């Protein structure tokens, strides 16, 4: 059997090199692309993202990434969003009082984390969802987070059938990971989370066929 094929969507956001190399380390064949057709046809698609929600969404739309995400999910093709690439999968984001519409693959608005010490930066534990494929064997691990915004509507997402893994910062609980049908996302950076992150990416890649 040939190695699974993963495409990383390059829409002008962030450090793609680490994502590319961390995915290669799982044994996948990895390619960066700005081409929506290539992103649509890939076995697995990774949507990275750093910086502001609005800027990421604008960059994503410019390469047709919002349509790619929607169509891939309709066709059951696996997609993994990372950090702001995870946030833009939700209905909307509010940063500095400005609301930006997201890809609306999940309900919920990305809002500021309710904590004094922001950004939430560093290695935190998670409470992994029961039955999670992504977090299989990783319940006790820490992952690298760096963000000030997050999704708080954990119960609503669960009611909609999503497997939701949470993290907590100064008592505020938010989505750390979410999995539903072909779509998955992590608020933290698995490509920056050492051995635990590598194992999580391997879990995701191993489900590609």
């Amino acid at each position, binding site marked *: 059997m040939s190695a699974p094929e993963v495409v990383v969507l390059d829409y002008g956001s962030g450090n793609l*090199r680490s994502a590319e*190399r961390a995915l290669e380390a799982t044994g996948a064949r990895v390619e960066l692309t700005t081409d929506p057709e290539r992103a649509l046809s890939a076995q697995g698609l990774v949507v990275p993202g750093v910086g502001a929600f609005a800027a990421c969404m604008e960059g994503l739309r410019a390469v047709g990434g919002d349509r790619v995400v929607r169509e891939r999910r309709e066709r059951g093709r696996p997609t993994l969003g990372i950090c702001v690439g995870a946030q833009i999968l939700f209905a909307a984001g509010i940063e500095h009082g400005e609301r930006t519409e997201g890809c609306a693959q999940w309900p919920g608005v990305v809002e500021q984390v309710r904590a004094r010490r922001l*950004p939430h*930066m560093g290695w*935190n534990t998670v409470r992994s969802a029961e039955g999670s494929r992504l977090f299989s064997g990783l319940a006790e691990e820490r992952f690298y987070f*760096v963000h000030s915004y997050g999704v708080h509507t954990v119960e609503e997402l669960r009611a909609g059938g999503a497997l939701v893994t949470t993290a907590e*910062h100064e008592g505020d609980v938010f989505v750390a990971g979410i999995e539903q049908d072909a779509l998955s996302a992590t608020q933290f950076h698995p490509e920056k989370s050492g051995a635990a*992150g590598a194992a999580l990416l391997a879990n995701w890649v191993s489900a590609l066929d």
Partner: protein
Amino acid sequence: MSVAVRVIPCLDVHAGRVVKGVNFTDLRDAGDPVELATAYGAAGADEVTFLDISASFEGRETTREVVGETAGTVFIPLTVGGGVTSAGDVDALLRAGADKAAINTGAINRPEVIAEITHRFGNQVLVLSVDARRDPDQPSGFGVTTHGGRKDAGLDAVEWARRGVELGVGEILLNSMDADGTTNGFDLEMIRAIRSEVDVPLIASGGAGTVQHFVTAVEAGADAVLAASVFHYGTLTIEQVKDALAAAGHPVRRGS
């Protein structure tokens, strides 16, 4: 559940080589930054910081290659500082594989560059590196220096940190120029003074000599602790520092 105290080794890099005090026994080439960063990654470092002290364009280009090679080998966050003066510099570092950029003199000379960088890349990308020392002429008692502590920048360190956060930096790297190289411990009063004024994560640097020094820096308010020579010379391991932090009740990340 809470975020772990980060333990960060710092490598001084000049034209692609680690230049200050490296005496790692099990490395083939103690001057190779990629090899050293990889070794620290395997030893459980929570981040690695490269401080680029190259003066030339070519030297900085080489450092970017080092960052790129490291980012392909060690999957933990990489911060790069040295010579950052514009959003373009940060862009080049991020493209090379850095996750965060540290700015120092570039922000002192032109504070508005902080907002230019963070508007484009987000505030999590920018660390304000503050080289400070005790200075009775400043209101807080701590003044900012440049040129490795040799020149007085004429700024109050606490006020400068507060202003940096207001302008958008996502983190402060506080280097005590008095404590640096002494191995007598971090400047705890300085850490407390900055901590009481800013809410972003604070990395304490300068003066580490024993594991207990790291514990007291965290108890003074540091979210992360950075050191160079104690790690490079093998005086302390990352794991020993984490053991001491854990024994004192602070959360740490185990494994690599």
